[in-house]
């Protein structure tokens, strides 16, 4: 909380968290750790920790919201009171209401909503710890949760931001860089077609710089896309490869394993790693 204004954000091409200007923060995704949700994902992106859960397709309440020809998508982006430096009041802020909407609009194009008329699909995103770039991280996590819920998708949606700090275009701004920097360009794309489903920008950029930032953010998205796919294959392809003929008893690979100890161990491990990097 005691930030000195004179501190440089980039020194000899190295940022305050030891990254190069085109480096992403460390990203890990764990698929399906929640039992009650139809699909879920836990995403650690630098110091960001985000849980996304998907329920549905299910009945819509209130009923009049249901669409006769497609599923009704609802999305809530919410920050935990302890996720920020100052405690955040639990009631949704105007910022959260806006982000809920743009995240929904980023995800909806990927969902084959017309397969589920008169139903609702709920996407709940809880930011447990935030450190800049949570909207992109939320989209990334929510897309994995949608896939985990078995909802037919045209493609995953992946988010990543680029921006400008101290005159340089950099990838994936953290909180300090976002606050002290000159501009932030968060985007989300569907990588198979390159379709951009979220694009925002605040700050000041020349057209050239904007183009550079956009290219860099797309590059970042492609890297994150690989991490999403890897997380999903880790859960689902392993399931498929397990030879049925083997004499080992059927291994329950789903989240139904009693009290899922691995999950929490993983959580602990990753939080440790994160602490090491951040301190």
């Amino acid at each position, binding site marked *: 909380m005691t930030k000195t204004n004179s501190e440089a954000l980039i020194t000899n091409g190295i940022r305050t968290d030891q990254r190069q200007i085109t480096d992403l923060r460390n990203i890990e995704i764990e698929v399906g750790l929640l*039992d009650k*949700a139809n699909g879920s994902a836990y995403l650690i992106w630098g*110091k960001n920790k985000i849980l996304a859960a998907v329920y549905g*397709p299910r009945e819509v309440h209130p009923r009049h919201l249901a669409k006769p020809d497609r599923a009704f998508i609802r999305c809530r982006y919410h920050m935990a009171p302890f996720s920020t430096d100052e405690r955040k009041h639990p009631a949704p802020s105007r910022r959260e209401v806006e982000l809920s909407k743009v995240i929904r609009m980023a995800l909806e194009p990927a969902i084959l909503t017309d397969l589920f008329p008169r139903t609702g699909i709920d996407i709940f995103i809880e930011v447990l710890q*935030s*450190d800049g770039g949570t909207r992109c991280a939320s989209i990334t996590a929510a897309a994995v949760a949608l896939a985990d819920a078995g909802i037919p998708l045209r493609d995953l949606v992946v988010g990543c931001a680029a921006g400008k700090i101290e005159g340089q275009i950099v990838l994936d701004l953290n909180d300090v860089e976002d606050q002290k920097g000159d501009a932030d360009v968060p985007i989300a794309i569907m990588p198979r077609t390159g379709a951009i489903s979220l694009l925002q920008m605040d700050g000041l950029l020349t057209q050239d710089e904007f183009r550079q930032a956009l290219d860099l953010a797309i590059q970042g998205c492609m890297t994150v896309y690989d991490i999403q796919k890897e997380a999903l294959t880790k859960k689902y392809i392993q399931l498929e490869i397990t030879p049925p003929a083997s004499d080992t008893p059927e291994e329950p690979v789903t989240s139904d394993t009693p009290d899922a100890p691995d999950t929490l161990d993983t959580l602990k491990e990753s939080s440790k790693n994160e602490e090491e990097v951040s301190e």
Partner: protein
Amino acid sequence: MSESHDVIANIRQRRILDHIRQDQRIDGRGLLDYRPIQVNPGIIGKASGSAWVSIGKTKVLVGIKVETGTPYSDKPDAGVLTVNAELVPIASPSFEPGPPNEDSVELARVIDRGLRESQAVDLTKLCIIPGKLVFIVFVDIYILDHDGNLFDTAALAAIVALMNTTLRGYTVSEDGTIQYTDATSPLPLRNIPVEVTVVKIGEKLLLDPTIEEEALIDTQITIATGDDHEVCAIQKSRVGTFTLDEVLQAMEIAKNKADDIRTNVLGAYR
């Protein structure tokens, strides 16, 4: 694709009840056994203290934030403790987004009373300038996955989070402003309350119900006990009734289980 957990097939209900009548559980536990408990303290670096606790598949995250503010006028030299609970819609198909409903308010208040009445946090040591400035300890309970027994899971997560909460060092200048230093100290605790909920299903008392078993509960009682076995808070919830004998039995059960948890789960973090 999605199902409501509140609805359980009659045949399933009957099986659960048949087991309980024979002092068994459908998942193989005894009536007074908890599911496995897992504790992950300090998972939220930005919080002053935190804990992710799971009992079986039920998962609760508690984050503690310590901030400064004005004391209550009737206790000018004591810090302030506030507890808030969010039934996050992530946790269950029956949780809806929106302002706290009566369930989350009850949950928060039961945890609050366990902590407050046991004097778990030594509030007298949280005064900075009497009558003007004190530390406020915010306990935010986040229900992440609801598979039954939210009270006990949340209470456990809350106390573990408080146990790893740190206070920032400070100095007070003459004009009454405070300056933080880099030093930190653990939050002063005087007691470690443990809450145990005893539920009644078909004349039997049992612990740690799953969400399926909760649908069959006649009534339940939550009992918070402190280090010296003192009872600090009790809450009977739900519509049904207990006999006096059942209440006394429940007290004994809760006391023993609290001891067990205090030794085997919390022991490592004291």
